[in-house]
């Protein structure tokens, strides 16, 4: 499900109330009991976070410097994993593909929902219908979406080429051509995910005060000028949030290349996460997989930090 731009880690500190004096003598024990009670509630969640979030993050860094095979004791190998991964011919391809994918997803996958939301916001009829239909693909399991488009992209009787033939246009190799494979996957990702972006952006559009448009119109601003000088500045914050979230999400793309192209043709669609998967489960090289994970982690962590910083500073500086 799309993560909405809600994360706002500003902590609301409750006003501390004046506490009644505790019964004489039992203060220390009482506090200890309170703590024990608090931790009884906390412990289950705490263990899960420790085991499945904190520990793996530390482990990724440790194993990145080890030769690690499950079952035998690990050996320290220094930066050997990093240099080996670095010299893998697929390494450059994977990073290039991931970055191009992210960039294209940002261009196509952001421009389209942006324009769609602008248009939808002007329509006064069938509002519920449009919202449901645009969000429908998000609810279809990603695996089904990927398999569905794999079938559409079939060079023979696939819907994509049938449509081109119907329109008397030259057919394409789609996901089977080295130069078209990546963009084909971007189309799938855009189709599958734009619903969330449209809905969030629509909500942001509805919070723009109508007087601003009125004032702009009185000043003689044309439609495009109103978009440029009222709509965009007023929703700048949401636009930035959605863009960062999209970058973070698309940098981790895996299902589409794995299901539709298997990374091919000729590594044209191998992504970083796919390469991590290959290192771990095809080459049984967990050290290499963790070295790659650390690289991805550092990059995504930087983007996430920007995202969190922006949400923290909030909308008040608009």
């Amino acid at each position, binding site marked *: 499900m799309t993560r909405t731009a809600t994360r706002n880690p500003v902590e609301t500190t409750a006003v501390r109330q004046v506490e009644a004096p505790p019964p004489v003598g039992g203060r220390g024990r009482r506090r200890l009991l309170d703590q024990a*009670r608090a931790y009884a509630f906390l412990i289950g969640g705490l263990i899960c976070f420790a085991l499945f979030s904190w520990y*793996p993050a530390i482990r990724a860094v440790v194993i990145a410097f080890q030769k690690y095979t499950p079952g035998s004791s690990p050996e320290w190998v220094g930066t050997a994993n990093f240099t080996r991964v670095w010299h893998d011919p697929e390494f450059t391809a994977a990073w290039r593909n991931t970055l191009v994918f992210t960039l294209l997803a940002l261009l196509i996958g952001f421009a389209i929902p942006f324009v769609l939301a602008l248009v939808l916001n002007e329509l006064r009829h069938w509002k519920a219908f449009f919202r449901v239909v645009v969000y429908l693909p998000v609810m279809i399991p990603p695996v089904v979406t990927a398999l569905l488009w794999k079938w*559409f992209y079939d060079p023979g*009787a696939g819907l994509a080429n049938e449509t081109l033939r119907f329109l008397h246009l030259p057919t394409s190799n789609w996901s089977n051509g080295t130069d078209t494979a990546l963009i084909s996957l971007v189309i799938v990702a855009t189709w599958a995910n734009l619903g969330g972006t449209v809905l969030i952006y629509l909500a942001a559009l509805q919070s723009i005060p109508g007087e601003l448009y009125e004032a702009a119109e009185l000043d003689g601003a044309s439609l495009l000028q109103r978009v440029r000088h009222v709509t965009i500045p007023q929703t700048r914050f949401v636009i930035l949030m959605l863009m960062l979230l999209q970058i973070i999400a698309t940098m981790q793309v895996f*299902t589409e290349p794995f299901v539709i192209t298997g990374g091919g043709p000729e590594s044209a669609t191998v992504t970083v996460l796919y390469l991590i998967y290959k290192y771990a489960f095809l080459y049984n090289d967990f050290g290499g997989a963790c070295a790659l994970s650390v690289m991805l982690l550092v990059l995504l962590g930087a983007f996430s930090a920007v995202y969190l910083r922006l949400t923290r500073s909030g909308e008040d500086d608009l």
Partner: protein
Amino acid sequence: MSTRTLLSPAALARPRGRAVYWTVFTGVVVLFALAFLFPVYWMVTGAMKSPDEIAQTPPTIIPKHWHLSGYTDAWDLMQLPEHLWNTVVQAAGAWAFQLVLCTAAAYALSKLKPAFGKLILGGILATLMVPAQALVVPKYLTVADLPLIHTSLLNDPLGIWLPAVANAFNLYLLKRFFDQLPRDVMEAAEIDGAGKLRILWSIVLPMSRPVLGVVSIFALVAVWQDFLWPLMVFSDTDKQPISVALVQLSQNIQLTVLIAAMVIASIPMVAMFLVFQRHIIAGISAGSTKG
């Protein structure tokens, strides 16, 4: 909402404005039908075509003969009941674990002032910066051999359930909601002699229905839609959820049967969406404006 948007009501009321409006409106309806509904229609009807008909060019828009055998074959040949059941068990368990453990932890962090509470919350929020997918390999190694107790959760639904609890987003959503609940009600209950668990159960939870609904939907959808993690956890074919099974079986199965299986796999989430669409859409929309 009838607030004024880009276009003024006056411009829309003019004959020319009205003509343009209805042209754009029709265009958007056609575009939506072609872009979002037609692929779904193509999938649902494709499964009803015969194997010859589906390979035919140009394709038939409406199946010549309606076969239900694609669906029945998928149900029987691909062991769909088994895989659907696995998915239900995994999703329901993840939901239950998340609801119980995340709610309890959020309640403790919000109301019980545990020692190092700030530090723990900081640690949980920090995991938001570390996108989950980037850590799947070390997470897999941890699940394959849990520290201290040296047990493997591979091929076990617990391998889905427990990691699902470490969801900082849902936990934070709950904590923030609990922070906003009025203190005086809880203090009154405490004076009346209610314990912490009683306060959570009888006061906090009934007041938190909206946020519990949102967290529940997020939790269910996340597990139902996930692919990479269950792919790693379940190497055992009998235990795989439907998403993994579909991909594994897609290689050597007849196209119409595969498409039918894809339709069946989509039905639960799409049905849930259509039933709760108002709440889901309102939830997504509300998120953005609050910031």
